[in-house]
């Protein structure tokens, strides 16, 4: 279990994490979804004891991270964003080292290394130096080194970045298995598909703040089954807003000279009405994109921008 309450971490004037609170429970996958620079890595850094929080409370399996860091870290497995491996050493030796610094000893460690190698499909390359591995294999080993000691709490920081589709599918399966076998998993990503496919509950973060939190269903409900409509062309923002205000149930998320973003129910049936209202307001529409409700549209609804901008 991870308990985060009012976590703040500032670098000078910049609040990298700005009052974040959530609880990730045993046996569930809790997601932190947000664009680059949202503060995901900083949050994980504070929980793992790497960074000292500016303020707030952090507990891992009941241990206070700041006051009793060693006890907290004993329960923790971290799969960092970067591939933190010794690439002169073999997969087996890396696992031996990372298991060793977690306090594991032979023969348990030896058996566990074999099991983890098998799990991540690296058994036949176990003795090769890691520098000869492909990106996907390194990612899998990076993951393996985080779970070799069977942590009660597992934190993964964008573990699928730069991974081939096959390895990604395998990695997501492995993460699910960890949660199923009773670990509390904290998973950060900027891929909303991953968050949707993997997480039991999640928090959407931006600029160090949580802008929405809940189960996938709860978050979808926040959109009230509204579609997201994006119109491109040339607009006079004020006139366009004025014209659309007269149509029922349309929310303007964003309006500028080249683009409008609207949130509305049953958008496809109401397109003609929208077009004629905009034409009256002197707008010229050249492109239309309609998006079904998703985390992406939620993110856009909440922040007025796309996740991957």
């Amino acid at each position, binding site marked *: 279990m991870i308990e985060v309450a009012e976590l703040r971490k500032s670098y000078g004037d910049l609040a990298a994490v700005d009052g974040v609170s959530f609880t990730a429970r045993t046996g569930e996958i809790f997601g932190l979804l947000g664009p680059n620079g949202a503060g995901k890595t900083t949050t994980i850094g504070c929980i793992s004891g*790497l*960074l000292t929080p500016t303020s707030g409370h952090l507990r891992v399996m009941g241990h206070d991270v700041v006051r009793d860091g060693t006890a907290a870290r004993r329960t923790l497995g971290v799969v*960092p964003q970067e591939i933190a491996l010794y690439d002169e050493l073999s997969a087996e030796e890396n696992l031996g080292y990372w298991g060793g*610094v977690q306090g594991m000893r032979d023969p348990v460690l030896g058996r566990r290394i074999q099991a983890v190698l098998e799990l991540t499909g690296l058994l036949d390359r176990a003795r090769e130096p890691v520098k000869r591995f492909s990106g996907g294999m390194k990612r899998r080993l990076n993951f393996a080194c985080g779970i070799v000691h069977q942590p009660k709490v597992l934190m993964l920081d964008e573990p699928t970045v730069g991974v081939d589709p096959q390895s990604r599918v395998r990695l997501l399966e492995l993460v699910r298995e960890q949660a199923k076998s009773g670990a509390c998993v904290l998973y950060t990503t900027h891929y909303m598909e991953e968050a949707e496919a993997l997480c039991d509950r999640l928090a959407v973060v931006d600029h160090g703040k949580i802008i929405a939190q809940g189960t996938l269903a709860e978050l979808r409900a926040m959109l009230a089954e509204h579609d997201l409509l994006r119109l491109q062309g040339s607009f006079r923002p004020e006139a366009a807003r004025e014209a659309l205000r007269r149509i029922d149930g349309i929310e303007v998320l964003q309006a500028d000279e080249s683009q409008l973003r609207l949130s509305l129910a049953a958008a496809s049936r109401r397109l003609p009405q929208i077009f004629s209202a905009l034409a009256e307001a002197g707008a010229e529409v050249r492109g239309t994109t309609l998006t079904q409700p998703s985390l992406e549209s939620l993110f856009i609804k909440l922040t007025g921008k796309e996740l991957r901008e």
Partner: protein
Amino acid sequence: MRFVWISALKDLRRLRRDPMALAMWLALPVFVAVTMNFVFGRQAAAPQGRLLVADRDGSFLSGALPGMFNQGPLSRMVLVEKVNEDSGRLRLEKGDASALLIIPKGFGDAFLNNRPARLELITNRSQRILPGIIEEALSVLVEGSFYVQRLIGDQMRLVSGNGRPSETSIVEASVAINRAVRSVMRYLDPPLIELQTSVVSDEPKQKKSFGALFFPGVLFMALMFIAAGLAGDAWKERTRGTLRRVACTPSPIAAWTAGKALAAFTLVLAVAVLGMAAGGWLLGVSLSHALPAVLWAGGSGALLYLLMLFLATCASTERMATFLANLVLLPLTMIGGSFFPSEIMPSSFAAIGQWTPNGFLLGRFKAILDGGMTAGAIAAAFAGLALAAAVSFWLVVRRLRGTFLV
């Protein structure tokens, strides 16, 4: 403690997988050692010394003794000039020569009859190395002569004995002498040092070969390069993220650092043992105090490593760290007496050099190796070394836990 061991093992394994790195750190010291050996073994550009010889004996043998400086490699290093004793002393005082050799009356006689003979060598204190060469060469000559005496004493007595020798006895003697000299010369020419340890002589002591003079400096040069190279690895671990990953485990950063220092110590110890063996075998380095000397070298390596590590962790970027390391590495190595032994440096430089960390450690190393330190002084030196290492360790860990980590 287990974490320390695990970390050290990890680093030693990584080093073993990357022998090129080690080879690069050792390349320059080995190159310098080989060059020195080449230069002074065959002395293409060796310094020239002037040896003044005052011959009070005036015998056939006393005439021949300085003549031996005119043979082989020595002839290009040492100019011999016969002088009378008084003017010789005067010139030596004025610094006009490297040394004055006084051959006492009755030397030839004593030598022929296998009685102890004493040669007096007065060296010029202001010159550091040339008198050393002369002293060295002379001691080798004396040792050589000792064998010559053993081998052909009879014939020589015959030739220079009372009365005119017969022609046949001269021929016989010269054939025998010739053969003996040739067999002795096999040992004398070029590897002068071969004979160094073997002989009794009551000549001026402190017979250190040229190679042995350079050996400690070259060893410490290797130590400096290893220390700097290994210190750079902290940045590698930081950039890759393995350091941050360690910080997320229950294993303390201090254990990770201690593991690295232990790996450095082990590596330097291995290099020192091998270097010492090679030095003893090839350069005639005296090995009678090899054990404390090797341990001192290992400890010095660990301390220098921690100092270089501290420097590296003070840099704001990896590139800056490399730049800083290079900035201090060569000057320190040079002034600390690794390219040129402090014995041949201008004394002002030598004085500064002995207060550089590596120069200071090197000075103690030489003293230990030469047997010039009492057991108590050695113990005190080791205690000081341990204290310095502990302080540097504390500084490094403080940096690592602080801004260096993230």
